[in-house]
């Protein structure tokens, strides 16, 4: 993090960094951003500035990440509304209950450690159209043989990157016409 680029000592220099850092870049590649001239002399003071304002470099990273996430949240919307998220106590707002009757159409369980017994919950969704199980480490041939109840509604099934799926499991996907 020591090659963090700061134009000058003012507070809005941090905003400068956040704006240049778009979602495709990782945190560690911040150093690849623009290097304004005259930076070298001010480095020692940059570090002092950093240590004055942030007790921990991790906290700085966290702060930047939060800024980035809030930008991403602004971009993706659920049916032109905000995603429904739990508040700081972990509770959902009462409007959530209005959605009880709405059928679930898509489930994205990528990178999720769902296993054979966990599929019990997904198989109850009778109107599921899209099921994404990419890179799930525990999804194997036995799990694939359980997917036949979704045959009527399922349009899209993604199993890319699942290490335990083999051709024997794919052979039993013929139920999903």
């Amino acid at each position, binding site marked *: 993090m020591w090659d963090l680029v700061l134009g000058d000592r003012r507070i809005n220099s941090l905003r400068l960094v956040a704006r240049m850092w778009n979602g495709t870049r990782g945190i560690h590649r911040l150093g690849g951003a623009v290097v304004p001239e005259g930076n070298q002399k001010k480095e020692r003071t940059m570090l002092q500035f950093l240590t004055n304002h942030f007790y921990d470099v991790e906290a700085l990273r966290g702060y930047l990440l939060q800024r980035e996430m809030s930008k991403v949240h602004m971009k993706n919307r659920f049916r032109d509304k905000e995603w429904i998220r739990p508040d700081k106590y972990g509770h959902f707002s009462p409007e959530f209950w209005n959605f009880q009757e709405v059928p679930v159409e898509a489930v994205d369980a990528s990178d999720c450690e769902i296993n054979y017994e966990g599929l019990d919950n997904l198989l109850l969704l009778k109107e599921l159209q899209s099921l994404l199980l990419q890179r799930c480490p525990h999804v194997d041939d036995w799990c694939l043989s359980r997917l036949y109840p979704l045959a009527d509604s399922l349009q899209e099934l993604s199993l890319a990157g699942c290490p335990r799926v083999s051709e*024997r499991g794919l052979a039993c996907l013929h139920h999903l016409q």
Partner: protein
Amino acid sequence: MIRRVLPHGLGRGLLIRRPGTRRGGFSLDWDGKVSEIKKKIKSILPGTSCDLLPDTSHLPPEHSDVVIVGGGVLGLSVAYWLKKLESRRGGIRVLVVERDHTYSQASTGLSVGGICQQFSLPENIQLSLFSASFLRNINEYLAVTNAPPLDLQFNPSGYLLLASEKDAAAMESNVKVQKQEGAKVCLMSPDQLRNKFPWINTEGVALASYGMENEGWFDPWCLLQGLRQKVESMGVFFCQGEVTRFVSSSQRMLTTDDEMVILKRIHEVHVKMDHSLEYQPVECAIVINAAGAWSAQIAALAGIGKGPPGTLQGTKLPVEPRKRDVYVWHCPQGPGLETPLVADTSGAYFRREGLGSNYLGGRSPTEEEEPDPTNLEVDHDFFQEKVWPHLALRVPAFETLKVQTAWAGYYDYNTFDQNGVVGPHPLVVNMYFATGFSGHGLQQAPGVGRAVAEMILQGSFQTIDLSSFLFNRFYLGEKTQENTTM
């Protein structure tokens, strides 16, 4: 003499187990030391044959709590569950005696490897369901440190049983029982069959039952090897030898109706080594008969069936070897990847093998056509005359096929009711059976192993109640028979 002194001095088991095995972890190089001592003795006293420290590593231990006769999948499953359910670690010493370590004639390795829940008896369905969950979680049950995880090559393609008009009603009621027990089976009409499997000819088929989940086929060798590794790591002894004699003692007792019964208790098992007359008497508390197709011989050695016919002493174990052939053929236009294991109304069955349009299958012969079980030679004429016509009728694509290879194996066929024998013998009180499954032993092995272990350790069946599979039914004449077409 020294041979008997040494074990007492150095602890039982040193002479038997090789150093550096997982359980002992000795740093002594016992074999090396023994050979050095022998060399020294030879140099001091040339001309003497050194039989003071003979090599007994091939012999079984002299005492063992449980002796399991037969090292196939059922025997190893009982050994596994005994070690898993014992209340204190290392509490029970188990010895598995297997006559043929290459398993060249054992039913396990020669089996087609299918598992299905489409039975009519609830106990059979529960056993198969438990075995399916055992196989699914096999790496949690049979994990051994530093060994790679097991890959059973399970094909979850299901079983399709076809029924003619006269069997349709039985099939419907069976499917109801299966659904009650939790098996996922559905009934299909001939039209649905044709829609789903266009390669099938539904002539003569009134109803079909199709298993959707937990059914298919897997590699039995992998299960056997996995069980063997795990069981060895749990400290079970193995011995390659043949059981030739039981030494038992009898006791006369009166029943509550003042009838005299003679109860026998086996005290010693004589295990004879291969190609020699050397034998080792093993003192034991319990003997388990898991000898598969040869269980009747072991039972006869224990005196089961020696008595006037019609009495309990005179009831023999009705398990005999029956030869069954399996043929592998290649058919490029055959059914595709969605093919389940199809069991036809005529008794012929086939399934897909691999991805290269290969299929394997066979047919159970009728009573008159039973082949001679003395050898495992394949009868190719049987395929030409009795199997192929039925296959070609059911699947027209099979009219052109080419047989690649074939093999034969034994069923441990229960001539009484074609279902397994589990549990203790009423008169020979410490002999337990785990045999006679007549073709579905492999798929029920984990459940049966657990049941026998529970019977031994806790005195009764705890999880699946197999009381209808006890030996008594042969004497009482009550058949627990399947009425499926398989």
